[in-house]
């Protein structure tokens, strides 16, 4: 049992941190939001750092790294509120490596690792909420390939992606498909999310596709687990940043002749924010360290973590705004942006209530980190 980071891991974190500081200042991010919420330069820069191939095996041109590396990278990207969905590249590569036939891996993994292609998970449907087994999209087989028809919502960087990882029902069973961009994939309906990032709708009409797995639910569960684990780490980095901003403010802001950080009632609330940050960090570690476990164990760990992270993110975000007073709700100042991103994390890939339900349904008599 060892929670120290290796020197290589520390260096990786440092490299990402430096890039974020240089290329992703708050003002740079604001411009990127105004320009549509997705910067291909930023994505390419991350690819050049090796981040797009983080989980890809070296046989396919990747970095062959694991969940701990992913976790510390996401902490730094969270700290910078980076909008480009590198975690979706990790979702795609993880799912391809675990489930896809060889030809699909050789076709896509090197391009994903090199940053030439972006594949995103496109699984939301209207009325589906957070249920992974609700799927209206359908697929029909034509020889070796498939055609997928349906409408997926809330797809990250929909009009920027080169392809989509799409659940669809084939012969009454949910399967998982890789749908490359084509004349049959319509991503014209684009918009931005509350955090400024780019999103869109995906309309598929007999879109040519390859089957990643007929064990669609298991494959989708892995995708969501990888994504949720990334969100947990991202939230940790962002909560740390949000707390630091709040502390700086409280130590500077004077009312009644003294810095407000001197007021005991506010000091206790800072302590509570620290508590939520550290509980969140602890559970983020837990999820990352269980990401390579067997499916049931992995998914339960991720749900436990996402539940904690959701509560922590809510608490830290709300308190940070409140402790800032009026400027906390302005657009000009950074903390409202932190709060909006933290809120978006809570609502993504299953909110706290959803994951609580999953944890509750699987409760055994004994529980513990090692139980």
């Amino acid at each position, binding site marked *: 049992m060892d929670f120290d980071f290796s020197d290589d891991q520390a260096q990786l974190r440092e490299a990402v941190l430096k890039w974020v500081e240089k290329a992703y200042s708050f003002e740079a991010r604001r411009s990127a939001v105004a320009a549509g919420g997705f910067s291909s330069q930023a994505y390419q820069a991350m690819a050049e750092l090796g981040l797009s191939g983080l989980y890809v095996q070296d046989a396919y041109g990747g970095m062959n790294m694991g969940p701990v590396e992913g976790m510390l990278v996401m902490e730094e990207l969270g700290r910078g509120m980076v909008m480009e969905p590198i975690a979706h590249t990790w979702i795609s590569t993880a799912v391809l490596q675990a489930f896809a036939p060889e030809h699909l891996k050789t076709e896509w993994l090197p391009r994903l690792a090199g940053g030439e292609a972006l594949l995103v998970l496109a699984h939301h449907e*209207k009325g589906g*909420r957070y249920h992974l087994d609700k799927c209206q999209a359908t697929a029909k087989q034509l020889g070796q390939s498939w055609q997928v028809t349906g409408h997926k919502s809330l797809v990250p960087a929909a009009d920027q992606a080169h392809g989509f990882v799409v659940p669809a029902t084939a012969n009454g069973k949910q399967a998982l498909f890789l749908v490359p961009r084509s004349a049959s994939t319509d991503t014209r309906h684009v918009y931005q999310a*509350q955090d*400024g990032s780019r*999103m869109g709708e995906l309309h598929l009409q007999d879109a040519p596709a390859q089957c990643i797995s007929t064990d669609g639910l298991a494959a989708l569960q892995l995708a969501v687990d990888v994504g949720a684990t990334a969100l947990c780490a991202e939230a940790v980095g962002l909560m740390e940043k949000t707390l630091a901003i709040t502390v700086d403010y409280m130590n500077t802001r004077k009312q009644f002749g003294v810095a407000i950080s001197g007021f005991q009632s506010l000091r206790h609330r800072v302590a509570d924010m620290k508590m939520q940050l550290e509980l969140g960090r602890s559970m983020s570690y837990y999820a990352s360290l269980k990401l390579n476990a067997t499916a049931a164990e992995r998914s339960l760990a991720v749900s436990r973590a996402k539940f904690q992270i959701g509560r922590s993110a809510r608490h830290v975000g709300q308190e940070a705004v409140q402790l800032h007073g*009026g400027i*906390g709700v302005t657009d*000009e100042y950074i903390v409202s942006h932190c709060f909006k991103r933290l809120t978006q994390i809570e609502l*993504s890939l299953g*909110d706290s209530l959803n994951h609580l339900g999953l944890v509750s349904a699987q409760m055994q008599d004994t529980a513990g980190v090692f139980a």
Partner: protein
Amino acid sequence: MDLAFTPEEQAFRQQVRTWVQAHLPEHLSHKVHNALRLSREDMQAWAKILGAKGWLGYAWPTQFGGPGWNAVQKHLFEEECALAGSPRVVPFGPVMVAPVIMAFGSPEQQQRFLPGIASGEVWWSQGYSEPGSGSDLASLKTRAERVGDKYIVNGQKTWTTLAQFGDWIFCLVRTSFEGKPQTGISFLLIDMKSPGVSVRPIKLLDGECEVNEVWFDNVEVPAENLVGEENKGWNYAKYLLAHERTNIADVNRAKRELERLKRIAKAEGVWDDMRFRDEIAKLEVDVIALEMMVLRVLSAEKSGKQSLDIAGLLKIRGSEIQQRYSELMMQAAGPFSLPFIEEAMAAGWQGNHVGAAHCAPLASTYFNMRKTTIYGGSNEVQRNIVAQTVLG
């Protein structure tokens, strides 16, 4: 002790309800019921309709044209307006500056300013907070220097709600640096068209410019715009707080929004999720408890027989409930609350909603409602006041 409203009170409620149904334009209630953006015209339209009926200054004494309602009648009027989906009355004119002018202003000021406020024609803003004076309002620095028959005003106010639409602004200004800060503050009425007044909108986290900075650069204000006595302004501001209305609890709107929350929960399929439903049930009890607390305060006002010290709790609880229903609505929409499409938050948009149409404003409303525990005396300050009454 009796819970029911008297037959007279019920008849009054019915009278108000009938009038509101007949006079509240449908396009306004549609926007309010669906949390769609209200324009300046929208807000002022309702004020003028009320004004024409003599009901904008509904809490004013009869000698100044008020309808002479008691505490319960005022509450029923507020409730009927809220339940029907009327726009919130912008309070700075009719609820905040008018009572001060009535209590402390000269007859000339009353004749000059009150009719425009009562009719809804004149839009007032409140110039209190400054960048360096939020919770510590008494430390305010905007200076009003008496020079002959004028005050020369220099300084900056902030968080001035809707000042971009303001015709006049009432300001707490510093007229003396001697003694305690509170004893050097005056209450001054300023025409926003005066040379030297400039307004800069402040965009909030929901994308709207609800508040402003107002700059005063050598603004000349006639001395007759001073309300009451110089250096007594802090007392006049406190007078307003002492006459805190139960309206601050906003329980009427809470009941309306609770209904909307249930509709949204059903439409989004979370009504049958007991975990989610229980959260709504908890909120429902909270709303009822707040309503009971409001009624207790009203009963005490009505009878005058017991004085209640719980009015300070109303703002705290009311704001927390506002935040809770806005949060649950966003949660009900779940991931479909995430798109931020400004056009979709205006009435009559014919574009493609991502989720259901009702999802469009939910996250923005949740974000905007974070202000309620900050403004109007932050909940931290309110708790200090409550603690003081309990602990001494």
